[in-house]
């Protein structure tokens, strides 16, 4: 068990396994999808080993270009705050809450995601 979270992924039913740690790319993102009653949601999962938290999940859909590409952006920080830069028009989104730094009206949704052993678990 590597998580230090209050929630226990094994006991709450709305935790869902996404993939394993090996599928992740350190310091970068991969895309995943999630069936919901409202349709398919595309997620961008970022893995920052050694940081707290070390996993983030945001919308994969880039509101500026309309393409599903956020997971392919470069991860970094702006004044210490972890962000991802959209690979198309380069806007920055805060990993913590999805807020776009260039446009206060734009915010990506975020989900909680944790490592449970080698499994990557998503709460939805």
């Amino acid at each position, binding site marked *: 068990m590597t998580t230090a979270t209050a929630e226990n992924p094994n006991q709450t039913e709305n935790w869902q396994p996404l993939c394993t740690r090996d599928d992740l790319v*350190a*310091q970068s993102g991969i*895309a995943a*999808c999630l069936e919901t009653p409202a349709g398919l949601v595309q997620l961008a999962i970022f893995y920052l080993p050694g940081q707290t938290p070390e996993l983030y999940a945001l919308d994969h859909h880039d509101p500026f270009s309309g*393409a*599903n590409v956020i997971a392919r952006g*470069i*991860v*970094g920080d702006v004044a210490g705050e972890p962000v991802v830069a959209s*690979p198309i028009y380069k806007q920055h989104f805060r990993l913590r809450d999805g807020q776009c730094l260039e446009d206060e009206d734009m915010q990506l949704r975020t989900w909680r995601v944790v490592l449970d052993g080698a499994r990557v678990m998503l709460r939805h």
Partner: protein
Amino acid sequence: MKTTDDTPQDLIIIGNGMVGHHLVEQLVERGAHRHQRIRVFGEERHLAYDRVHLSEYFKGRDAADLALSTADYYAAHDIALHLDEAVTTIDRDARELITPQGRYAYDHLVLATGSYPFVPPIPGSEREGCLVYRTLDDLDAIREAAGRANTGVVVGGGLLGLEAANALRELELDTAVVEFAPRLMPMQVDSEGGELLREKIEALGVQVLTDRATQHIEAGETSRHRMVFQDDKLLETDLIVFSAGIRPRDQLARDAGLEIGERGGVVIDDHCLSSDPAILAVGEVALWRGSIFGLVAPGYQMAKAAADTLCGGELSFQGADLSTKLKLLGVDVGAIGDAHGDRSPGARQFRYCDQLKQEYRKLVVSSDGRKLLGAMLVGDNASYDSLMQYYANGLELPEDPASLILPSVEGAPTLGPDALPETASICSCHNVTKGTICEAIDAGCDDLGAVKDATQASTGCGGCAALLKSVVDSELEARGVEVDQSICEHFAHTRQELYSIVRVEGIKTFSELIDRHGQGLGCDICKPAVASILASCFNEPITDAAHVPLQDTNDTFMANMQKNGTYSVVPRVPGGEITPDKLIVLGRVGEKYGLYTKITGGQRIDLFGARLEDLPNIWGELLEAGFETGHAYAKSLRTVKSCVGSTWCRYGVQDSVGMAIHLENRYKGLRSPHKLKFAVSGCTRECAEAQSKDVGVIATEHGWNLYVCGNGGMRPRHAELFATDLDDDTLIRYIDRFLMFYVRTADRLQRTSVWRENLEGGLDYLKAVVIDDSLGLGDELEHQMQTVIDNYECEWADALSEPDKLKRFRSFVNDERPDPDIIVTEERGQLRPA
């Protein structure tokens, strides 16, 4: 105007527009709100807003965005704000104001009532759908009416009229401008300039009718209104906006018996006092020495003088310059001083007109040619700032004043910020001189933001932003303050410094570099820059785990991302030479994966629309057929174009194709500060366009001529002749050294052309380094190049051999399906994004 006793006085300001609000700020700055009870009346429902940028309301800025202040600001300074409450009467005997809500006593009164749009007394102008353009409410009315209209007409082709026309155009109405005078903007431009302006505006789809006096407006047949002109011509339209000039809102003052100008306006003196010393006037309602100023900067200066007067000071209003620089409907127009040249006896003129580029520039100079009296610019305002400085500060003109308006040829005199005197006005909105800026810097402001905060420069119309920055930069530099050149917040180093650190310390990963010399996680600026440096030095595969998170998306996926998230595939075709077999393979792959196929400008073939998950398979097939990656995604060597050369062409003197292939294979995969393009031509006819490339090679009877530092793109630059009649080996040696010297010393994303222009010592220096080995670096540069060449490996071949590197080439980590949002349609027999 200070009173002797201590009882607080009542100060009332009528009008909460731009100038009225500026007056409040000026009073607060002087602490007046602590001794006087200040009350402000505004007829509009909105708190003072930025009327200058009113049109942005149609581009999505709302009233709150445009507001110049907040109710909290007024409350915090104990200023009573009565919005939506128009003053109807001034009772000077009782020193009281009357509004529908009550009576208010005053000791001092300021009129800041601005002006109203003049609607010519044409029968029918009162019809519904005949509107004006002055307030937020006016814009709401226009927007609302436009929703029910297809066509719109603006009456008046002046500055505001054209702005209104643009707004109608953006509201998707078929728009026309009707001007009474024979040309547009008669105040600012002459007939030649007006003609150009008309052409430019008509090109945008706005109909321009000049010399038209509207006689009356009646109900239309096909549209809501019909305008009837003096020559009985007709124009039908659904909506009419009048923009035929402004008139001062002086009715209150007239009724109160204050002195009013012949053509309106409250007469004021240099202290903004009206004929009743208890009453002042500022802004567009005020008439000073026979002039009304319809611009915000003079209004602000009046507000400053008035605030000073009200606080017992001596500051006076000394008139203001009406020079303007605008971008109307995307067209630059500038007018400085006596732009028409009709106010200065004996003045001489210079005129430059380019009807192809649609640029017109005119200078009005004193009879001895020493001083600039005025200038007019249409189509290009690039020289406005410099000209304005010559004009405003009476600077001596250069020997040949025409050089100031001729198209920029190298060596044209430019006026640098150091050439300006201390008294030079930098920001006319807030009346900030270069001297004030220097004082602010001396008082501790050490960057642009701090100077802005301290002086307010560039916080009005914003027109002075570029000039302010250059003055601040040059002053900071002159004081030995280092203007921060750090690459980003994570490294306090330039790219060049990082390059040396990496080389000297042998650092091979980003994490090691940031641990030792930086801070934080890095970002989308420093990561790709460092990735490029590491690759230039060691050329390890960019998809290795340590490097892959640093790459721009295109490098990560070794393909160029398109706007819908798919990718393009560009295999290398060295020198543009390709066998029929390989062409067939490209065709097959394109067909199999549904790719749009196009010949590029770089003599190769681009396959567009590849889905992420298809990229590995596509490349598997291409590699098998003998293709390699073309690095179309990378800041590295792109293509080496060639012409057919001596093998086929009757004029060719050398084998240009052979040389092009040799060069392309030698330098492929060299990562550099920006992309690199080469070309090789077989003779002086130059069919490969080598003189527009970073490296251009042209065959001669005796060998090769080498050209360097050219490019096409946004700012084309011809390459310069670097060395002549070289044999193959010398040619390659020079190119090795040239490229590595560029890689070592250029800024990030700086092409060879810009690098060369910034290189101290210029081409001669570059020749000395490369040809004469003046720095003794020759061997080292060649050796570094050899390392890169020895470590070359096709990135796609490498990635396909290591399955771990392909795990991101899936639309979803937890699902096999492709991204369902990528939708294509067919056009001209091929697929393209829907």
